[in-house]
């Protein structure tokens, strides 16, 4: 009984879209912990691929990776980042010249790295919470 009460008391961090996350996970914090951890892992992997595509001037390939990464931020409540990714996806779609994407890509890498810290931190909080509830 005590554990059930605790489970209801978990709150997602305020800088995340808490309303959306509450609705998405509907108090299933085991799933939330799993999704936060796997999303961070996948975002890291995709960021590496994006950097490879950028280094070989493959704008079409870069756009595809950015497109794939985009919804991952939504599952962890970072919906604002999605619009930055969508804007960069459009830049990539509109050019074959990689130099035109440089400024945008630098921004994408920076916000992704910052986002990863946030996701890792929330994944850790969720994991601790779920462990305490066992």
């Amino acid at each position, binding site marked *: 009984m005590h554990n059930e009460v605790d489970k209801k008391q978990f709150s997602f961090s305020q800088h995340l879209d808490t309303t959306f996350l509450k*609705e998405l996970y509907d108090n299933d914090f085991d799933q939330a912990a799993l*999704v936060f951890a796997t*999303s961070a892992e996948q975002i890291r992997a995709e960021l590496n691929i994006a950097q490879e595509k950028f280094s070989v001037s493959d704008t079409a390939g870069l756009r*595809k990776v950015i*497109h794939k990464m985009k919804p991952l931020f939504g599952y962890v409540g970072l919906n604002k980042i*999605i619009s930055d990714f969508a804007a960069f*996806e459009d830049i990539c779609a509109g050019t074959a010249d990689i130099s035109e994407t440089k400024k945008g890509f630098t921004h994408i890498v920076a916000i992704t790295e910052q986002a990863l810290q946030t996701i890792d931190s929330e994944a850790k909080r969720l994991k601790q919470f779920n462990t305490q509830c066992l």
Partner: protein
Amino acid sequence: MKFQSIIVEDLQVSADFLRKFCEKSGMVEVNNHFLNAEDALSYLRDNVVDLIFLDVEMPGASGFELLDQLVYAPQVILTTSKVEYAYDAFQYNVTDYLKKPFTYQRFLEAIQKVGKKSEQQNGNSEQDHMFIKSNGKLIRLHNDDILFIESMGDYVKFITPAKKYITHNTIKNLETKVNPQVFMKVHRSYIVNFTKINDIQENTLFIDGNMIPISKTHKSGVMQKINIL
């Protein structure tokens, strides 16, 4: 009765959410999950489903290319993170369009649309006629009078033994509205009344002296449908 479905989605986390929502709804059974359109198409050549949850951008062929090659018309819920696909979704007559990530509530709304459309389609399978708008009039055509329907871009031509009727519509749209017990799509530009087929020679079928191509992707569907002794 549950809707039999497949998920075609290259993002595992999205597929996991879909699977969970399907289970939670109790209305949808997920028979399989594919990471690309090619594998899904191969499965769909031998298996019939009521519903496809379909991502648009995947490695290899796109979700729309998969729809172009389908020999029958299950309902489709597009799942994508790009709103720009909404227009194409409309063109392909999909049942709903879910922008990733989406909530369970939004998923349920989509499934309710599937239910409604399914009821309409069941009604269609008992219809022996249809009304088409041609030259400013609504004309009643009996299924038995229609030999085949041919695409003309944004228009289609209904061919009957006596007359041809041109109306503003698409093969894609008609595919889900005609009686599936009588009509089938044999090519991206043709729906035929298969009770009117006179003969088939390799990749061409003949109806009342008209030659109609059978596309490679629709060939197996045609052969399954006709009664070969």
